[in-house]
């Protein structure tokens, strides 16, 4: 059992494959308490899968994922659900329930898991909405929200039960610069004001570098580098360099695996 108390989540030797494609081959990741940890990497490296593994929605074939010192893949359903109440997850699409208003969406986890009177739920929802600046939008339906607003509403829902940790799945993707700025600021203030542990999965380098305390770079199923943003920035690793500077070719090849070009051109058709 991992000894350090500083880490909320500890992943050790985790292997995961879907069908024949290996997504993770022996990954070790520590997520320190109260800090913002970013998981970065090119698209298609299973970053979202990693969040689902932490949330216990899928199980790794090998290795352990400890949350509060308990191995998530080995948990019974009841225990897993109890652990999930301590996590909030912000999905890329927001994942708001489309058949209820913003207010009811944020009240949803409170109504499901607590027996609070409706008056108190109303106050809590308004407080959460105030935190994300959508108090005025509470009677709108999810379909009436812009992408950035939907993500903020989803964030309000993710913190409704006052979790210890929030998992952000690509929070910056597809946002205009203003919403992006708003989200960066929100994530940071959540972290500071509520003492939340945050895990951000992203490939937006600037924004992530600006708020992360610790960065892991994943490529082809392995952790290729980790450290503080400064350390990552100074790293000599060709993987990290390519990713951080957005070079088209490098250790991550530009070309999808194929026959040699010349051979392909000359091949009999």
């Amino acid at each position, binding site marked *: 059992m991992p000894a350090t108390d500083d880490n909320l989540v500890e992943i050790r030797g985790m292997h995961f494959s879907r069908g024949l494609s290996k997504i993770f081959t022996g990954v070790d990741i520590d997520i320190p308490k109260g800090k913002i940890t970013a998981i970065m990497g090119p698209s298609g490296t299973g970053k979202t899968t990693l969040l689902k593994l932490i949330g216990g929605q899928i199980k790794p074939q090998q290795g352990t994922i400890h949350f509060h010192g308990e191995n998530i893949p080995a948990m019974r359903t009841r225990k897993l659900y109890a652990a*999930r109440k301590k996590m909030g997850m912000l999905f890329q699409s927001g994942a708001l329930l*489309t058949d209820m208003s913003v207010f009811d969406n944020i009240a949803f986890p409170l109504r499901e*898991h607590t027996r609070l009177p409706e008056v108190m739920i109303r106050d809590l929802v308004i407080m959460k909405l105030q935190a994300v600046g959508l108090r005025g939008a509470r009677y709108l339906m999810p379909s009436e929200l812009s992408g950035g607003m939907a993500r903020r509403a989803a964030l309000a829902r993710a913190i409704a039960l006052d979790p210890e940790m929030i998992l952000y799945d690509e929070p910056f993707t597809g946002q205009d610069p203003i919403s992006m700025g708003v989200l960066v600021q929100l994530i940071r203030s959540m972290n500071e004001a509520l003492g939340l542990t945050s895990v951000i999965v992203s490939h937006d380098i600037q924004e992530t570098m600006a708020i992360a305390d610790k960065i892991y770079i994943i490529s082809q199923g392995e952790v290729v580098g980790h450290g503080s943003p400064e350390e990552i920035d100074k790293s000599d690793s060709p993987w990290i360099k390519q990713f951080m500077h957005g070079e088209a070719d490098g250790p991550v090849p530009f070309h999808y695996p194929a026959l040699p070009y010349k051979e392909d051109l000359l091949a009999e058709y």
Partner: protein
Amino acid sequence: MFDWFAKVGKNAIDFFARFGREVLLFIQAVIGFATLIPRPGLVVQQLFSVGVRSMLIIIVSGFFVGMVLGLQGYNTLVDFGAEESLGVVVALSLVRELGPVVTALLYAGRAGSALTAEIGLMKATEQLSGLEMMAVNPVSRILSPRLLAGIISMPLLAAMFSAVGVFGGYLVGVDMLGVDSGAYWSQMQAKVDFNDDIVNGVIKSFAFGIVTTWIAVYEGYSCIPTSEGVSRATTRTVVYSALVVLGLDFLLTALMLD
């Protein structure tokens, strides 16, 4: 040669694996019924989208089917001078067969496909995943109320179909073709047995309610979460429901006539 056996074997394995998943999901959803006891509102909401919204098409179809039975039945019976038995023909056809079966087919097209599409889209937009991460079981929260509403709705819809159909047959037979009104009802009442015909019809529609809603819910829940996957799942719901309803109808009829 071996390829052929391998193919047969693979299909068989796939079929049973699929059936096993369906049964497991059904059991989970039925266990989830317990969570609905303190929250009947969830079922009421689904009764609305599954039952109330199917009511109009069922009533209109039942009326037309009854009128057609009246016309066809009259033309056949009048050759034997037995047009007084029109009520029997109309009522027995409706209560025993057409009521439960046609209702189930219409239901699969109207409500089943909508259920599949709704659940499939919830999956595609990560809403089901979101529920799971909020520590809410999507099976008992989303599937169970829909399944229960479907099981409650189907016998009610089938009863409406048959009742309206009997009046449709009356309208054509008695008002248009001149069958004696008293004979229409009295022959019907003499020949239609409560236990053997009405109760068996209700049992059938109850069974159809279970299988069609079960198929709809399973297809939505297990679909590939893309727009194409959802559209395919919706088609499968209608096709499988129709096949299973007709096959099950034969089985149940054979058992009941025994």
